[in-house]
């Protein structure tokens, strides 16, 4: 679980949804990378992640890791965003019955869990059905 430094350095991705676009082939990476997995280029431009997408798959976590005990059961899924990036996150503000492959979702900034090792409250993005 995050120490303060580990949490702090991920803030650009988790708070501001900063992604990296390959200057050579245009592929968008989230989280950002230093080498393009498609063309090998090392040159990237910062870009902001698309905020809308569709669920590719989902599950409901019934047996959670200890820091999520109070939240369980909760839904988690992988969505493909409009820029082609695939992202893993929780799906909130919907009943489990509404979950389906293809469900349109948008990203919203939420609390993920409280009390990391350093007693910090951890924030990030979650999927909300549109």
């Amino acid at each position, binding site marked *: 679980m*995050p120490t303060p430094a580990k949490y702090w350095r*991920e803030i650009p991705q988790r708070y501001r949804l900063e992604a990296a676009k390959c200057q050579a082939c245009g592929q968008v990476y989230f*989280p950002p990378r230093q080498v393009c997995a498609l063309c090998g280029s090392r040159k990237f431009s910062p870009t902001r992640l698309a905020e809308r997408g569709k669920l*590719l*798959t*989902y*599950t*409901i*976590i*019934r*047996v*959670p*890791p*200890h820091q*999520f005990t109070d*939240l369980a059961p*909760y839904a*988690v*899924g*992988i969505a493909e965003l409009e820029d082609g990036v*695939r*992202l*893993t*996150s*929780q799906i909130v503000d919907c009943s489990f019955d509404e979950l389906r*492959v293809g469900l349109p979702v948008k990203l919203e900034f939420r609390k*993920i*869990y409280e009390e990391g090792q350093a007693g910090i409250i*951890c924030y*990030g993005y979650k999927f909300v059905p549109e």
Partner: protein
Amino acid sequence: MREVAILGVGLNKKWGELWDKSLRQIFVEAALAALDDAGVDKLDSMYIGSMSSGLFVGQEHISSLLADYLGHTPIPATRIETACASGGAAVRLGFIEVASGMSDVVLVGGVEKMTDVTGSEATYALGTAADQEYEGYHGLTFPGLYALIARAHMEKYGTTREQLALVAVKNHRHGAMNPVAQFPFEITVEGVLNSVLVADPLRILDCSPITDGAAAAILCPVEMARSLGKPVVKIIGSGQATDSIALAQRKDITWLEATYQAAKQAYQMADKTPADIDVLEVHDCFTIAEICVLEALGMVDKGEGGRATEAGWTSLEGKMPVNPSGGLKAKGHPVGATGVAQIVEIVRQLRGEAGQRQVKGARLGLTQNMGGTGGSSVVHILARED
């Protein structure tokens, strides 16, 4: 490259919750069984697969610890970690070392002592095989990740909940004939479908257990094995490959590319095809995993793993018996030991020593061991020489 044989194999006596035994004890038990089976007492080096002895028992540097307790210092010993594929990777490195001519007799082993910690600590330790920053952070667990694969496979190929259950039922039927197995008893489809939900659609009886266990094999040049007077089993193909450890980074969530690539290398080296294989031990950490692995190995067409299971192809009497040992599901899954234990089972099958669970006339076997959700995979092809 020299031809490499497997001279001897061994497991510790019983897998499961071994509260009265330490990591070093179960490893030495397995290693001595392999040395006795091989009829040798001198080793040139050791490779030990272990995913997380640090998190499970608070002990790193087990390579030297285990060489010492086995009575084999000062031989070189190295611990190998590729998550749940650590054992398979240790076998591959031992194979390479003997094939190269650098060493003659190499012990490849694997060990994991998982029940000294609480269930939630074990879940955390296993979770470190996933992308902690971008999967674990959002509350995903290992059953959760495989549930994402299962849901996508059901959606894309029409795989059914019953077909998943049949993987567990079949592996328990096999495991009931294996005295080492943690769960040597049969279960039913209804039992699986009524077991507690862990991560929809996966239930507790879709999941392999937390296990203490160890396995070992002795590798040597093939000429040396021929003088022993036992059927000679050779490693004729070896492959290993990687993929993104985060599921979201893959092009197709239902496809195990690293397993496909590792298998391709192994088939090529062995000059064999999937149709030649008589018996398989594969990485059924969850029921859906066995289905996806069969597809990636080319044993069935893409999307057909569930239907092949339902048709009985993968049972002991079927056209491609899979996991005669009971697999990870029934035999148990001490993560670092699993890849080596698969080799142990295939050697026994090819020697005709598997008793009740013997696949009749098996001459060519395949092992597939993977880490995480398939971010690493190791495949070996073994052949009986006559």
